[in-house]
């Protein structure tokens, strides 16, 4: 899993000020599932999965996802935000091992 933590962001190419823009984001991450032993008991360990996704635009948090292991491998999230000013849109993915992966898209108006 050399690609772990790779973030992809897709933002529409032409945005006008005031538009509500839909963004798609994806991160390469294994999202480990709960494992059980032969008796069906859960093996207690610190599973590595993403438990928080934070979207900030112009430095302000717009959307936050609190997630569990029930989100698929290589999680994909989409959301919207209102484009008011040019600036960075940042998506941060935090996992349970302290990993922090982020992707930034520059929002600009043509």
């Amino acid at each position: 899993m050399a690609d772990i933590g790779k973030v992809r962001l897709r933002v529409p190419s032409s945005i006008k000020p005031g538009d509500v823009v839909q963004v798609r984001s994806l991160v390469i991450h294994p999202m480990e599932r709960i494992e059980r032993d032969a008796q069906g008991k859960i093996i207690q360990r610190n599973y590595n999965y993403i438990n928080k996704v934070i979207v900030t635009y112009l430095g302000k948090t717009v959307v936050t996802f609190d997630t569990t292991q029930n989100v698929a491998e290589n999680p994909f999230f989409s959301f919207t935000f209102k484009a008011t000013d040019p600036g960075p849109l940042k998506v941060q993915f935090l996992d349970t091992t302290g990993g922090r992966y982020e992707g930034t898209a520059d929002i600009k108006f043509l």
Partner: protein
Amino acid sequence: MTDGHLMSRRAVLQALGAFGVAAVGGGLVAVAPKMAQAQALRQNESVEDAMRRLFGGKAIKGGSAAIKLDVALIAENGAVVPVSVSVESPMTPASYVKHIYVVADKNRIPVVTRVTLEPEAGRAFIGANIRLGESGDVRAIVEQSDGTLLQVKREVKVTVGGCGG
């Protein structure tokens, strides 16, 4: 000691639940102890317990008029099931959609994701790929800024379960 015995199971669960929600609320403190993190969105509870913990028995109204839950009726592969939720609602600081929960009834961890939205999101829309362990209802629950709870349910048939374990 008798006091401890008198404390009902429900009271204990509620106390624990409140702690869990608080831990999520303060989740930006990234260095919270690992156990607290694991507790934040709890594992291995029935969907009824999960609902009670999240909403404390508040009435949840049917929201089929406002909420659009988009999910395949038959998911061939439970490991990746695209879900999207959009809500017809104004997104102004006075009235907006605060949280969208995606809950899969039959999963061992029923609460799949809890999304916190700000008015700046412009529209109450989220999409995610989730896992489904077996066929069952998928719910989208919407909490508005005034505390109103709305939900829609949809049954999804899963051919191959995707939660493992």
